[in-house]
């Protein structure tokens, strides 16, 4: 359970760094992974082309 901006929300433990303890302050960085997005788009399009009749 994390506290942010006066509210609390739950985060899967697997997304938190190893060794984190109750009461630790966290810095949260989120990046858009454009390469992974493009790679998935390519995979999805290839699969659709293969399946379409």
């Amino acid at each position, binding site marked *: 359970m994390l506290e942010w901006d006066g509210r609390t*929300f739950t*985060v899967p433990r697997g997304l938190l760094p190893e060794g984190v303890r109750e009461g630790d302050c966290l810095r949260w960085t989120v990046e858009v*992974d454009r390469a992974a997005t493009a790679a998935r788009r390519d995979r999805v399009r290839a*699969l659709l082309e293969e*399946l*379409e*009749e």
Partner: protein
Amino acid sequence: MTRPGWRARASLAALLVLLLLAGTVACLPLSRRVSAPGGGGGGEPARWRPGLAAVHFLDVGQGDSILVRFPSGFAMLIDGGDREAGPGVARYIRSLGVDRLDALVVTHGHEDHVGGLPAVIRSLRVGRAYFYPGEHTTAAFESLLRALREAKVPVSRPRPGTVIREEKEGADTPGARAVVVGPVRVYEDQNDCSLVVRLLVGKVGFLFTGDAGSQAEEDMLAAGVEVRADVLKVGHHGSATSTGTAFLRAVGPRWAVISVGADNPFGHPAPSLLGRLSRAGATVYRTDRNGTVSFVTDGARVWIHTERGGE
């Protein structure tokens, strides 16, 4: 049916926004169950039998999954709920004695519509999948495509006017026809791309709108598409931005079904939408209150069964 509190879901929603921004898809740890069909009473046909059609709006929480059984037995599934709901959807369909889906309609790529489909595809034979005119870059959408490839299910991209299934009227059976009526164009918005299907059984009409929003609705009306229906699957879980007044007037539903999760963080169904349905004179069924809602028809009469509660 016990559901987890929405306090946890609300906080999860905040996380989900962050994860979506990161291009990551999270699987919400929600407990969902689809119950077996209940029986009717008073001599009414509680279940499908040859010569009748049945439409089951499955209770999958916040998501959509609708099973249609034609008078011949032809089975069509529209969406499969989210990943948590998938095994329950497959069990429900099997509990009806159905082990093959002749048609699988994928209205659009959002997880609450396609996340459960891989489990369904692994559990039942599928004849053909009908896809909306779009794609999505989520893991859920890719998983769906991989499951279809494993099961060797061909995919069609129907256009407005494409007939998915047509059955002729006979001595003991009504005619039935499922036709794609939308979207009439392609949108950037995933919801507006939703495949919209109209089913006519005898004189009884059903309209399944996926998550289509007001823009897609207005475009369908402008294109002169026939949307009249006795039973409307309300768009986008009862969002305020779907099922507009003009569209509702054109559909003219006697019954409206909202597929929605209890106490969801989106505020579905919106009070303004419920007001529009009330003013339109539609009797509303909600899967969060009524559980799975089933309509059985002989093409003239309609019998309605709810898993729990009344209207």
